[in-house]
């Protein structure tokens, strides 16, 4: 299998077997507009699937209709991307259509207001900024996001300048970011691999990562930061391709601006960008040491890496020192749990436990790492073979043009990003432990870009090879099918169909591995789910609170009720921890410890909101409040009916509001030792 030549072939290059085709202008226009009816059909199916999910409960039909809709656009887009003779315009129109279309599922999930946990936090932050013009305000749900205001600045700017609501402004920005991310992957692929065809295939493979469709389309800082991440790498690739010093300087400036632009937006993306740039820099340095890379490339690459690293370091040190304590538990706990798991001490999680996803999605999820593993291995073998051949040519007597061509095919960015993509594989085992699962999934949004760079040449090599049928000896015996041309074409078709099938598996599997049904589809109420816990009753309760008690009130409540109170009533929810164990108000029957009362009182927490189902149901995501709470991920409900009902008997908790499942109490800590006639003791 060879990949050179495949990548560099002009997109419209005629082949001897194929006579030039004449197309009328009208036919060309019709072909160029073909994505529109396709997208309309796909969009109709996806919209229908959401209606089915909302109305038919446990039925799996909505999955089938959803994937029919998605593949209606994804398959033609992949075909246009991988086809040898497609005009650049057609490739770009299809990839653009796919980019916009792949935004639809998340848009349909919550078109009119924020729903995901992080989304509500960022929406609140943006709304506060739009209203006050003050940066670095604390956030009630995720404290750290106040220190990374980049996304909120842009959302609030669009809102304030245009007059659109904060949510609509966010949707506009997210759509732009989502489309620009995919175009960035095309641009990066083209810059690194040398053809638009390869670029569009890189973009498609990148889009199969588990964050692309739902996570990086939510209102979250990563959704914007990852776009700059991709385009920064594009600029680095371009600086390495630039032939003049002035060009290199210009691309260096652009890369540095984009890379440093990530820093005030998102901590994790900044750090991963530094890592990716470091790997590219090392690859460049090694190639330069071998005198493979052109002179003048290493210094600007190192400069970009250094600038981004210093910016990230300074920001974290001076503006957001909490970042370290915020991120370290994810790495530390995940690694610790994984060690325990492999040492046989347990601590693992069962993949797809209690999942409602259909079996084909689960199978695809398990198959996806295997498929990319095989392709990555092939990519590494090609890299190794090319490196050996290149070195032999380099050291041999006839080095020169061939070696230069080899260098053009294998720029340091290609090697560096390919190696960066290999980080996907060590992250896969973390999916088996609860503390590492989310981090692992989120890292794939980045490493898949490198993987796409690594495996795209392999995929294109396979599509363009006729190997599969050439090696089928039974075909050689069928003399009536003898013509080599038929075999070549059929071989390409077989491999193209296989590539399309593998693409579908990757798309379905990674989306399934990314988020569960509660996030992806509307449906009936699910206790302890970020996205299915918000009911009209909860919204009505939060509305009542906002209207009668007021906004900016400090409340103690569970994670899911708190989301609605933050969204609807601008409330500030207590962030429980070992040092501020507000969850003890729920877990323990009896008077809370004096230290907790003292802290609640001095911090002016005035309201307690209780969802009575906490005593009868376990939360779907395993925690009532936060991952470090006692009894997290337990199989037995630690909260009793008595523990929740006790507040009806205390003079220091006045029951102000009661609905089917929710109760709002007013704290009066001055009465905590008081005794009411007929209620036993004040405890």
């Amino acid at each position, binding site marked *: 299998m060879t990949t050179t030549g495949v990548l560099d072939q002009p997109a419209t290059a005629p082949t001897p077997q194929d006579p030039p085709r004449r197309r009328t202008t009208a036919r060309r*226009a019709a072909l160029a507009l073909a994505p*529109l009816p396709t*997208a309309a059909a796909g969009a109709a199916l996806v*919209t229908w699937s959401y*209606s089915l999910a*909302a*109305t038919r409960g446990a039925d799996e039909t909505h999955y089938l209709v959803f994937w029919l809709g998605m593949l209606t656009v994804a398959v033609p887009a992949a075909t246009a991307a991988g086809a040898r003779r497609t005009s650049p315009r057609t490739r770009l129109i299809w990839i653009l259509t796919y980019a916009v279309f792949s935004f639809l599922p998340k848009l349909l999930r919550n*078109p009119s207001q924020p729903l995901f946990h992080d989304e509500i936090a960022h929406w609140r932050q943006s709304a506060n900024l739009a209203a006050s013009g*003050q*940066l*670095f305000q604390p956030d009630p749900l995720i404290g750290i996001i106040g220190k990374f*205001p980049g996304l909120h*600045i*842009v959302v*609030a*700017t*669009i*809102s304030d*300048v*245009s*007059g*659109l*609501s904060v949510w609509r402004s966010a949707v506009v920005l997210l759509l*732009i970011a989502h489309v*620009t991310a995919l*175009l960035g992957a095309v*641009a990066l692929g083209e810059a690194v691999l040398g053809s638009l065809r390869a670029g569009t295939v890189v973009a498609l493979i990148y889009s199969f990562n588990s964050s692309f469709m739902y996570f990086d389309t939510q209102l979250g800082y990563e959704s914007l930061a990852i776009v*700059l991440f991709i385009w920064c790498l594009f600029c680095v690739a*371009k600086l390495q391709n*630039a032939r003049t010093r*002035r060009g290199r300087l210009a691309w260096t*400036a652009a890369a540095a601006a*984009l890379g440093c*632009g990530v820093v*005030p937006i998102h901590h994790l993306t900044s750090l991963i960008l530094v890592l990716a740039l470091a790997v590219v820099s090392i690859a460049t340095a090694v190639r330069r040491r071998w005198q493979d890379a052109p002179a003048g490339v290493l210094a600007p690459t190192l400069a970009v890496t250094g600038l981004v690293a210093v910016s990230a370091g300074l920001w974290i040190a001076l503006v957001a020192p909490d970042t370290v304590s915020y991120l370290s538990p994810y790495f530390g706990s995940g690694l610790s749990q994984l060690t325990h798991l492999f040492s046989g001490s347990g601590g693992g999680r069962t993949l797809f436990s209690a999942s409602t996803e259909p079996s084909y999605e689960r199978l695809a999820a398990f198959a996806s790492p295997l498929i990319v593993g095989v392709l990555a291995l092939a990519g590494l073998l090609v890299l190794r073979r090319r490196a050996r051949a290149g070195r032999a040519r380099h050291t041999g007597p006839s080095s020169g043009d061939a070696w230069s061509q080899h260098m053009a095919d294998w720029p340091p960015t290609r090697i560096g990003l390919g190696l960066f993509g290999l980080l996907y594989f060590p992250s896969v085992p973390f999916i088996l432990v609860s503390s590492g699962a989310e981090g692992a999934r989120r890292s794939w949004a980045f490493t898949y870009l490198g993987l796409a760079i690594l495996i795209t040449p392999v995929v294109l090599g396979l599509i363009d090879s006729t190997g599969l049928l050439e090696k089928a000896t039974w075909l050689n015996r069928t003399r009536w099918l003898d013509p080599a041309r038929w075999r070549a074409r059929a071989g390409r078709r077989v491999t193209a169909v296989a590539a399309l099938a593998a693409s579908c598996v990757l798309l379905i599997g990674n989306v399934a591995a990314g988020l569960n049904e509660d996030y992806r589809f*509307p449906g009936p109420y699910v206790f302890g789910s970020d996205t299915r816990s918000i*009911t*009209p*009753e909860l919204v009505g*309760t939060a509305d*009542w609170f906002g209207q*009668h008690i*007021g906004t900016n009130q400090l409340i103690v409540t569970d994670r899911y009720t708190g989301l609605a109170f933050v969204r609807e009533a601008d409330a500030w929810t207590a962030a429980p921890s070992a040092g501020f164990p507000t969850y003890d108000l729920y877990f323990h029957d009896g008077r809370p410890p004096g230290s907790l009362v003292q802290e609640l009182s001095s911090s002016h927490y005035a309201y307690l909101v209780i969802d009575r189902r906490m005593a009868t149901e376990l939360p779907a995501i395993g925690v009532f409040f936060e991952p470090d709470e006692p009894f997290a991920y337990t199989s037995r409900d630690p909260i009793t009916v008595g523990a929740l009902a006790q507040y*009806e*008997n205390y003079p*220091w908790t*006045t029951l*102000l*509001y*009661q*609905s089917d499942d*929710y109760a709002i109490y*007013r704290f*009066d800590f001055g*009465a905590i030792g*008081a*005794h*009411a*006639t007929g*209620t036993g003791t004040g405890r």
Partner: protein
Amino acid sequence: MRDLIRSPRLRALALPAALVAVGFVGRYAVPWPVLRAVLVAPAVLWVPGHCVVGALGLRAAAGRWSAPLAVLLSIIVTIAAALVSYAGFGYVPLGTMPLWVSLGSLLLAAPRAPAPAATPRETVRALGFGTAFGAGALAVAALVAGLVHVLPSQQQPGYLAFSFGGDFADVPGVVRAQAGGMLDIPVSVTGSGQDLSGLTVSVARDGKPIANTDPVPVLIDASGQGYAHVQLPIATACISRYSFTLQHDATSLRLLDLYVTSSSSAGCHV
């Protein structure tokens, strides 16, 4: 004059300057948010980055990617300007700052390496295709919006909520009142998908019915929500618990509590 008009610098400035002007008009003269957004978007999300790309001399080198690059650089310019503004003045005027930044960025719009100009025919064709594709995309969006409206959606269960009303909704805890006096306690009943007729509110003190008080019927206002006023006779007690029960016939549906003290003696601990 002709030379000035034909100068590459002025030609490079023309489009961004026009877009900035349109942005200002949109910001200050157009009251409708969607139209205003359409008018200001290029000025805010494209012009600054476009000028930076031009200043770096990357327009030709970036080729077809110069437009998305300009969008991203515009975003970075906006963020940087906001941070500088906040550092300098402790405040970010988000409603106006981006347009002034956009205006200022025109100074950078020097065409150091202008992109090859398209022929008029190519421009017309590209515009025609863009218009046709854009119209088609809008039609697809309209189809989706129509389907969302037409297709059946989730039926949400109803609920019934009972709460204090008026000032008592925000009661700070134990209420001090004069023994022998009366408290007028407003309560409200809200519901979705519920029949509020026939509801009553009864009160108990310390778990026992209060003598000579009948259940108060819940009235329904014009918005379909229920309300009632309960007259509460205050007894002499350190702290009494008054329980308000929302009932339908004899069935208790919801409960509220109010703790009232009519004594200020130190032994009451309130």
